[in-house]
């Protein structure tokens, strides 16, 4: 019974972190889109820039992925899969852990959830963005994509971060298609970053 409460409480937490996460989960980790996308219809920004030390300092935040000998459809399935792993990430309690004697009770779990709402709004957004970046690096890295840095001004044209305001589904889809076209395009002349 206690494990069921935990499962339900944590499922509720997952729903809070990503409204509609259960609804989206039916389509999560989709291998290929239901309708083929013509990459010629996908507009991508100019990725050229003159690298400065300030750019390099921020490559941990602003990067993109490319893999040689990869077609658009494969890249699109890959970015969709990795985005699924990296979206709807959990809020962080930041010191509002449920006291252990109550850890197994539904009331305790709910108290932890409600308390962490406020702390997450204050301090969870930055960590959620960082966790998203880490999950993308892990997923795309395992898929063999190289990671390359960008200035923020170019990065924002085809990427999004999920702090307190995730993008709309339409905006997300636009960005994912752009990322897929770039990921299956020309290999940059710059040095790849590590995973």
């Amino acid at each position, binding site marked *: *019974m*206690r*494990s*069921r409460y*935990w*499962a*339900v*409480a*944590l*499922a*509720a*937490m*997952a*729903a*809070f*972190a*990503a*409204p*509609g*996460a*259960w*609804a989206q*989960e*039916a389509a*999560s*980790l989709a*291998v290929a889109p239901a309708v083929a996308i013509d990459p010629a219809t996908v507009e991508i920004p100019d990725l050229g820039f003159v690298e400065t030390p300030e750019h390099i300092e921020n490559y941990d935040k602003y990067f993109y992925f490319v893999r040689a000998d990869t077609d658009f459809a494969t890249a699109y399935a890959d970015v969709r*899969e990795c985005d*699924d*792993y*990296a979206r*709807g*990430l*959990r*809020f*962080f*309690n*930041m*010191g509002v*852990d*449920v006291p*252990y004697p109550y850890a197994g009770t*539904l009331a305790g*779990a709910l108290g932890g*959830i409600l308390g*962490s*709402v406020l702390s997450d*709004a204050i301090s969870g957004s930055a*960590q959620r963005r960082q*966790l998203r970046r*880490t*999950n993308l*690096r*892990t*997923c795309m890295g*395992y*898929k*063999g994509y190289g990671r390359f840095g960008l200035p923020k001004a170019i990065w924002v044209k085809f990427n999004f971060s999920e702090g*307190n305001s995730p993008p709309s589904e339409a905006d997300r889809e636009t960005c994912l298609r752009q990322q897929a076209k770039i990921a299956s395009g020309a290999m940059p002349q710059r040095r790849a970053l590590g*995973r």
Partner: protein
Amino acid sequence: MIARILVLLAAIAGLAAAPAGAQTLIRQYKPKEVVTLDPGTAYILYRSDEKVDIRFLRTPDEADWVDYRAQRAQALAKATRTYAAAMASYDRNQDYQQKRGQARPTKPVEPTDETLNFPSIELLNLFDVVGGRALTKEPEYTYLVAVRPGIYTLYGQIGLSGTGVCLCMGSVSFDAPAGVVTDIGEISLEGTAVVMAGVLYIPEPGMKQQVIPRNAATWLPPQVSGLTVQSAEFHAAPKMPNYFGLMIDRVQPIKGVISYQRDTIVDDRTGQPLPKQIVTAR
């Protein structure tokens, strides 16, 4: 922010009507408990280098699916009734608010099976082993649980502070049959997100997590001496959704069990990629 709170409150309200399933975790043993094997119950034993909560998913069997589909159908019927009432209210209020020059209300969305907000069956068939409730602490942390017989997958480590890891991109499954203790060896989950000085620390990606199968030299806790203990037979598991929004990773390769070609999961018994690479719900 307000919208997120409202969604949370709706989720909490939904807990009262949360679907029920057969209990997966029956008990977790404490140090001084006497362990006797029930012929209808499965038992899972493992060691861990740290006292962390570890989550296992149970593969639903046919009875679980029958039960789940019935509960899901009930939930959809209820949501449909709620929608009908909401539409009636919407139609009434629309005229009223238009006359008063107020903004039009948001039209309710008709629920369908695809959009129904209902837990995945996997979320109703999981259990957690509480890290603070070890069977032994010396010479190492061991854990023993009694569970429903079935096939289990190591999902990862979970904590309430956003800590832990989902082994979403590669893990192992094993059968836990009734009447015996299935020893899955050691679970080592290094390199996961942890809280340090009140700040969530997210490590660099690295595939540091391991499952180390039991061998002849593996220490057995005294509580299971005299009981039937058998080593788990591991199988490579397909990728899993990040249900709980955690840091993701995968277990290190295990010879004869699981290896990888890029992100493709390989059944290392045959050297072939798993035919089903990704778990899809329902």
